[in-house]
């Protein structure tokens, strides 16, 4: 039978799509929370690469993938706390700081890698999959969707958790108020700075985790610039989703699927330049924007630092 049609191959493609989608999902979910709270977190790429590096370092030296995820998230949070300090607490321009952090961490992790790993290129063992009973036996879909590392299911479950937070908790209201009318939140007795700081730190944690996943599970190793713009895609996903976590998941999966499609097309021997195929997901998004682009409902105070009593 043709390789193109084999079950194993289809499953591998789908599996790859999910693997590629997870970092985008985590970054997008994180970015979304910052944006909801009124912080345009352009530094997310820097948080991701910090998470990728520290996540790998943690996993490599401890031998535990979970510890790696922890150190990765911590790395993202560390960068995010710098961003929160500079942009939320003292109100510096979010774009300047965001880009600066991204550039700096790309450089820093590349240097560290150079001195630490560039002679040995250590790699991690394969991530152990958590096989979901019964579901994993479904042909094609089973091995594609239900034989992932536990963190993948957690990431997807995170969508539900965040939906619940946004819809059902005081925190959800606080976040939305912090992005739409911070002064109103402040006079309601909730500290805007603290709310936004929490959102930014959450973004850092998610981005760091996304980076760690990319390095530890996606690649099994760290190399400089490994995130390659995944953070920026996260920003796009968060904005396209307009505050709805479910859409981040859908968007991330579509991007992942598009990547797998390019592989599928090539393995099927379709002789189209990869450059053209690679444009497809972006083209699809643009077409969607042209067709359904209504007024983007971004938070009113997005990108504006809050200062109590200022006018």
């Amino acid at each position, binding site marked *: 039978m043709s390789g193109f049609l084999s079950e194993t191959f289809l499953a591998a493609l789908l599996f790859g799509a999910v693997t590629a989608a997870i970092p985008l999902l985590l970054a997008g979910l994180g970015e979304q929370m910052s944006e909801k709270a009124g912080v345009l977190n352009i530094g997310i790429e820097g948080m991701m690469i910090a998470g990728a590096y520290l996540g790998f370092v943690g996993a490599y030296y401890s031998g535990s993938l979970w510890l790696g995820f922890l150190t990765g998230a911590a790395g993202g949070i560390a960068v995010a706390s710098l961003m929160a300090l500079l942009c939320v607490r003292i109100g510096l321009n979010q774009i300047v700081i965001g*880009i600066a952090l991204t550039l700096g961490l790309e450089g820093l992790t590349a*240097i560290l890698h*150079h001195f630490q790993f560039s002679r040995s290129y250590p790699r991690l063992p394969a991530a152990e999959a958590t096989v979901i009973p019964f579901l994993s036996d479904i042909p094609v879909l089973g091995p594609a969707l239900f034989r992932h590392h536990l963190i993948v299911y957690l990431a997807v479950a995170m969508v539900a958790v965040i939906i619940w937070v946004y819809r059902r908790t005081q925190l959800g209201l606080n976040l939305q108020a912090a992005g739409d009318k911070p002064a109103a939140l402040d006079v309601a007795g909730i500290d805007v700075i603290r709310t936004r700081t929490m959102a930014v730190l959450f973004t850092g944690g998610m981005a760091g985790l996304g980076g760690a996943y990319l390095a530890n599970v996606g690649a099994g190793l760290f190399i400089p610039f490994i995130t390659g713009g995944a953070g920026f895609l996260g920003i796009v996903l968060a904005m396209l989703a307009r505050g709805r976590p479910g859409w981040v998941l859908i968007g991330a999966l579509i991007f992942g699927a598009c990547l797998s499609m390019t592989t599928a097309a090539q393995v099927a021997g379709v002789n189209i330049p990869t450059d053209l195929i690679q444009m497809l997901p972006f083209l699809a998004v643009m077409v969607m924007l042209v067709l359904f682009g209504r007024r983007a409902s971004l938070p*009113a105070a997005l990108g*504006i630092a809050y200062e109590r009593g200022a006018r």
Partner: protein
Amino acid sequence: MSEKAASLGDRAVDVPAGQAGRDIGRRLLITLGPVAVSLVLAGGVLLAVGVDPLAYYGLVVERGLVSPLGLQQTLTRMAPLLFIAAGLIVAFRAGMWNLGGDGQFLLGAVTAAASAPLLLQTLSGWLALLVAFLIATSVAMVWSLVPALLRAYQGVNEIITTLMMSFLGVSLANVLVKLVFLDPATTVPQTRTLPVADRLPRLFETTITSGLVYGLVAIVLVHLVMTRTAFGLKLRIVGANPSAAVHAGLNVPLLTIAVFAISAGLIGMGGAIDIIGIQGNVRADWNPAYGLAVIPVVFLARMNGFAAIGFVFLLSVLSIGGESAARRLGVPQHFTLVLISIVLITLAIAEYLDNRQNQSRRA
């Protein structure tokens, strides 16, 4: 949101001018001070990896600023960056986040690279370059039409659209190089090469491209248009308060489209200048990603054209000098990124401290 965020920048620009003389000294101080602090911070990183920071900085200054050769390189590097800064100033002052600079730059570059050698077969030297330059500009302008129309008539946020169009533009530029404008004489996928002699002339006896002059003219012109003309004022009104623009009877959609076209056009010119002045051709997968570094610089300059020239100069010194120093001392080139990043952050902090001090002094 973009309106308000940008208006914050605008507010800074429009506070009473007045004490200009003292201000320049002040600005110098709050620029050089942070640079000094950054050097100390980055020096820590250098020490950590076992490199003498003083030697490194000595080389940065020597190779980026003091040595004639280094200075020439620095000035040459500035040419395309100035155009990008000019384009970003137009957009940001009008409250539009044009984050699609890389796509616009590359498409401008590719069109210039594809057209200039062909045009040279029929037109005289400078005319061919001029036409290539104009074609590149128009292509970049047209490319910006999609986000412009979406923003003007659908209200679709331009951060998403310009970012997407940038990803697309970079890919498209590649495809064009690989499939359409390929130089049949080389195995490497690249456009035909514009011979050195046919490129923009160099200044005097140096290696500095005259593109630098055009870049300076462009950014000064943009500055004057934005601050001195009715058109510029209209754009700034749209940027600072779109409702006020509607109320005042301005044609906001049309102005929005104009902003995108001008901004993208200038960035496309940057791409063209880089090609017809310096590079001579475009290789597949070439993407210098200048936009990412120039965006914060424009903010730090508070969208002021003259200040932007200064910051672009600083950026060029750091990158040219940093590359040289890293090579000589065996530090990975990526250290330059770290240095630029620290400089950006300390500059932003200094700006904040300066503002706060100003305020408490007036109180």
